[in-house]
């Protein structure tokens, strides 16, 4: 039978073998996580009956590579051929899903939005503008703050989310994390904000629940734009 020391030694060896070199930083884990939540938003749109979903980029109508922002940016940025998803529900205004863009709050302060779904009309205005302008939060139907931590989250993250929501006119804002945080969950529930925890691929119950929440946001968007 292996001793505890043998087991520990084996863990240390395997740890090095299991690390994907590009994914060893906290920021890489965060960025990957935001892309994962982005994919859940797209799945929700599909589940809600989106007639057409297409991945586009600023320069190329159908990219074979998809570039995600990892630091908040402006839609007209030409630093990279950033990708986004175009989502169309029949007879409704077209939407776009983006990662890492700045949006404008009530107070005209710009906020970072990890994942957002907004009207294409607004996104296009910002994309084609020669000036760096941020979409207005009233045109955002889904705004997600996604947090990836290796331990239970500290309360300041919940407070920061409340600050964002209080200054935003986005239809629905969500706080999504990969773990628990009793204090944040208590705070956001008390304040009647949308949140979901333990969102990682193997937690199917929680992931389905979150996907359903996004689906409801798309459902409400369709209902609001009923002719």
């Amino acid at each position: 039978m292996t001793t505890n020391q043998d087991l520990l030694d084996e863990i240390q060896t395997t740890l090095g073998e299991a690390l994907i070199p590009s994914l060893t930083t906290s920021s890489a884990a965060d960025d990957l996580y935001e892309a994962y939540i982005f994919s859940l938003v797209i799945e929700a749109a599909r589940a809600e009956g989106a007639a057409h979903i297409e991945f586009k980029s600023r320069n190329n109508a159908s990219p074979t590579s998809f570039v995600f922002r990892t630091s908040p940016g402006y839609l007209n940025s030409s630093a990279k051929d950033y990708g986004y998803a175009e989502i169309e529900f029949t007879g409704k205004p077209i939407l776009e899903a983006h990662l890492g863009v700045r949006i404008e709050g009530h107070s005209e302060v710009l906020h970072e939005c990890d994942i957002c779904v907004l009207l294409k009309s607004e996104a296009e205005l910002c994309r084609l503008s020669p000036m760096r302008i941020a979409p207005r939060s009233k045109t955002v139907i889904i705004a997600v703050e996604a947090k990836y931590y290796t331990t239970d989250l500290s309360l300041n993250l919940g407070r920061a989310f409340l600050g964002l929501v209080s200054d935003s006119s986005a239809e629905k804002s969500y706080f999504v994390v990969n773990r628990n945080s009793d204090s944040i969950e208590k705070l956001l529930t008390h304040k009647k904000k949308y949140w979901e925890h333990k969102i990682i691929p193997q937690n199917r119950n929680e992931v389905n629940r979150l996907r359903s929440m996004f689906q409801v946001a798309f459902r409400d968007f369709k209902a609001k734009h009923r002719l």
Partner: protein
Amino acid sequence: MATDNEINQMYDALVSALRGLRLDWVIEEVEAQVALGRLSVKKVRPAEFKARFEDRHNQENYVNKPKGQSLKFVVSEEYTPRERLMILLDAVESAVVQTVEVARYITLNDNIEIQGLQNIEFFSEQTGQSFRINPTQVLLYDESVKKLARLLGQLRQRV
């Protein structure tokens, strides 16, 4: 069952391994949680402090009365060595195993629209740095990640 001393040694050994792999950010998150302590709401009876309060209100309400008032406070208790090691093991699982699972979901899940793309690149305008992931890369690490998850589970059971 390992002793507290053995558990502390395991903790230190793992922390050292993480530093060697430049996973200092994981250690920082763990240490932040350990410093915060295990939080719970408890009734506190200041009369039990056996202290002489300078504040007259405290002295009157909590010492002078036969049954001193109790108050609700959020109390932080230190984690035991075993709990501290569990926090670290969970953190390693999140940082390594679950990160690869997330990468796997994005690049290999058949239901995902984005899976049709050959490469996914993450780019920072602030630093000018980027990294890429693709299905081949993720599959290369699959076995090691599964082995690590198994070993972490075994260590949890041992302590």
